[in-house]
């Protein structure tokens, strides 16, 4: 599904040049659950953003579903992203002015799904995430765990085949974190590919494979026994 060839990402300011990724080569297959780990500043999030088509690599190739996409325009990347990729962030990133329902509905609006179909799918997703009773609430009225469940509902609503999660349990207590990880694992079992950046070894334990990054390099790749 995803393949990178000698991926390089350099951040430049007027005086400083920082190499965030240095010749990263990796391959992620359909249905895999991959965890990316490493110390702060090693390039985990940068890698995730590039895979998620939110950012462009400075050099190297990026293949997504067989297409070479690193030179795609903004418009092409948006189209590819909205149909194939769901995002879950550490800080949830819900829109404060929209209700839970409207936040989850948002991707479907951009996919031009009909109103009745949207309603049906959003209700299903909220039921599934066990927050249907909060549909009319605003994000600030929810606990962190509930917000993250809304974010996951939003990520899966468009039925993407890839979910990118950036420290999804980072802002949660252990109970809520556990719940979120259960949901992600469940989605993976249903066939969704998941790439997750995390600091937490126990969260990483849920994955099939752990990619260790250090100073922008892939250091090790550990295959794990599927649980």
């Amino acid at each position: 599904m995803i393949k990178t060839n000698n991926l390089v990402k350099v951040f430049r300011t007027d005086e400083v040049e920082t190499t965030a990724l240095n010749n990263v080569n990796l391959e992620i297959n359909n249905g895999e659950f991959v965890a990316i780990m490493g110390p702060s500043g090693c390039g985990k999030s940068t890698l995730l953003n590039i895979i998620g088509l939110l950012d462009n690599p400075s050099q190297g190739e990026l293949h997504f579903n067989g297409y070479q996409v690193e030179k795609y325009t903004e418009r092409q990347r948006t189209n590819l992203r909205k149909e194939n990729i769901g995002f879950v962030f550490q800080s949830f990133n819900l829109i404060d002015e929209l209700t839970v329902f409207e936040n989850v509905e948002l991707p479907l609006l951009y996919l031009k799904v009909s109103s009745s179909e949207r309603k049906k799918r959003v209700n299903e997703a909220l039921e599934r995430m066990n927050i249907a009773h909060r549909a009319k609430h605003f994000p600030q009225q929810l606990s962190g765990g509930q917000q993250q469940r809304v974010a996951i509902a939003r990520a899966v609503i468009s039925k993407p085949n890839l979910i990118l999660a950036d420290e999804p349990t980072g802002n949660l207590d252990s109970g809520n974190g556990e719940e979120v990880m259960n949901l992600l694992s469940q989605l993976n079992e249903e066939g969704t590919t998941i790439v997750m950046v995390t600091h937490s070894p126990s969260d990483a334990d849920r994955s099939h494979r752990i990619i260790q990054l250090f100073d922008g390099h892939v250091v090790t790749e550990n295959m794990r026994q599927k649980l």
Partner: protein
Amino acid sequence: MIKILLHTVLRGLSRQKVYSLINILGLATGVTCTLLILIWIEFETSYDTFHQDVKQIYSVYENQKYADGDIFSVYSTPSPLAETLKKDIPEIENATRIVSSWGQLTVNVGGRNFIEKGGKIVDADFFKIFSFEKIYGDTTNCFLNPNSIVLSQKIANKYFGDINPVGKTVVINSKYKFEVSAVLENARENSSITYDFLLPFNFFQEFWDYDLKDWEANTFHTFVKLRKNANRNDVRKKISKIISKHVLNSNVELDMQAFGDYHLYSINKGSAGPIWYVRLFFIVAIVILLIACFNYMNLATARSERRSKEVAIRKVVGAQRRGLVGLFLGESLFFTIIALGISIVLVELLLPEFGDMINRHLELNPGNYKFFFATIIVVLLTGIVSGSYPAAYLSSFAPIQIIRGFSRHDSALVRKILVVIQFTMSVALFISTGIIYQQLAFLKRSDIGYNKDNIVYVELGGNFNNNYEQLKNEWIKIPGVNWVTAANQMPVNFANSTWDVNWSGKLKEAGDILFQLSFVDFDFIETFEMNVIQGRTFSKQYGADTLQFIINESAASKMNMENSIGEKLTIWGKKGHIIGVVKDFNFNSLKVGVDPLIIMRNPAAFKYVGIRIGKDRQPVIINKIRKSWNKILPEIPFTYRRLSDDFDYFYQAESRMSKLFLSFTLVAFIISCLGLFGLASFITERKAREVAMRKVFGANMDQVFHLLLKDFLKWMLFAIAAAWTMAYFVMEWWLNGFAYRIHIGIGIFLISAMLTFLIAFLTIYKLISSLSGIAPANMLKYE
């Protein structure tokens, strides 16, 4: 999608009440001013358009060419012109003369007397050219009967009450009997032609003993209606030389002005006419709307910190930039529509006030399609212009930057520039208003060469000289009445001119020079306190003194005379001598200079009596004057005017303009302050951390305060410099339109700067002081 947009906007509104209020009020103020100005412009441009055939109607005017190359254009044309045009030019279907009844007429209806000034004398074609609605009677052939009168509804009601008066009789000046043949609607507010009643021309000939065959006397307005499909330019060519066919060596060419342009455009080259004000205020409307739009831009982008996350998330889940631009434009349109709602209420409330200010009766008529479309255009433009920059700016955020945490986008410079432009425009408006006021004050108090104060005058009808002598004898006895004199015109409205003047030593190549003429009685110079610089004034010691002339300085210099006393002068073939030279005085608006003037004593032409009264107890003196009048002329009501009021009338347009300018300047300042407040709150938000850090490292409150204030004042300084330059050049140009003008002083500029700093300081003081009082721990913890 629209539902979601509405939800987002409405929730944003209720969550950020101050922000939303500032935004909506700013836009509402801008839209209100624009709508008020548009209603006025619509009114001005609607003048005379209610006539069915307005596109075929033209006003014929004269271009008089003078020796110095000047062309003087006047609507006054000779009496036989209308009929000649109709006869000689096949394209002309109808033609009419129009002239106001000279002076006042006494109308007797069933034993009651009414003094009327609003009569018009017209030809029968008047009713075929103009479409004033008929209420009673018939106008088709009414003026075939020389004793017909047509009344306006107002006058018909005044004379006869609420009945059909057709067939009733009225008597004018106790002698001329007329039968009412029709009643017309009152002349509309937007009609250039006004009338209380209409009379046929034979009355004019009889009553004023006027030679209607005379091609050399210009007295009448001539209006023509062309046949459908007639070519206007062909007609213009054909009429151009008509006067010279009838007048030997004529310096006159005829031309025509479309009747639709009659109200707004001047026929004199180089003078724009009222259209100038229409255009000026159209620009003012745009400036105020722009200031309001800038406000919105400013505040909307100031919120970018808050909105950036939303933009990022929308982009991550699939929004394209185009869609986001639409979203933000939709938002600004939504705000504008709410503002429009408030504006409509404000316009409804302010319209009477605004109408008073510009001396017009204006109405908000939503059924008027022009106004309806103009409103839609204003809303769309405001929405799009306001939303354009925020939409372009906010939609440009790359989601990755925000997600990564680099959310500090720098639009601060653009916002500062917007506030600078707002203040530039406001300060420039302020300075312009100040200068307009100064110029008006200058005109009102400047030495006009005579004393216009404490003069009252009355118009005297009937047998003038008989009544005048009696009145003068009575009035002069009243304590407090200093001088009494008579003249054909008061020195505020000289409108009698001739080029038929000869003097010894007049050079052939000097060609024709236009001289103003005034016919006055003894004591005229004394009554108006004019200064005689050579010779003497008219005096009974010299008998009637009718073949002597007093000229003004300009006339002396045009005639190239060093010592004019005793020189021979011939006017209209009448020979006489110059007996005095009077210092130039302004008998017209100070916008124009002083023309050469010849004054002679001609009792036959007198129409007004001027009275100089003392400064004190004027009501008592005027009451005594009234009593004497009532004794001598009991059948005519006494009405008088003050010369100084007439003088103010000259500057009415400027006076109105200055009031409007003042109002709009206030509005501009208010909106600009809202903008500054928005900018200040944004910067305060941004600078909170910097201030906290400075405090940690030892800055005290005063130092922080100065640091923040300095930044704002620097930008205000830019605005003031730009406004000074702009206002200076624009006002220099405006002042150059006056023959007498002030020189722009530094005072108003300094006041504008001080005022701007003060306003800016007051606007941002609270915000800055709240920031400098902040506890650093709060900010740093938050960050």
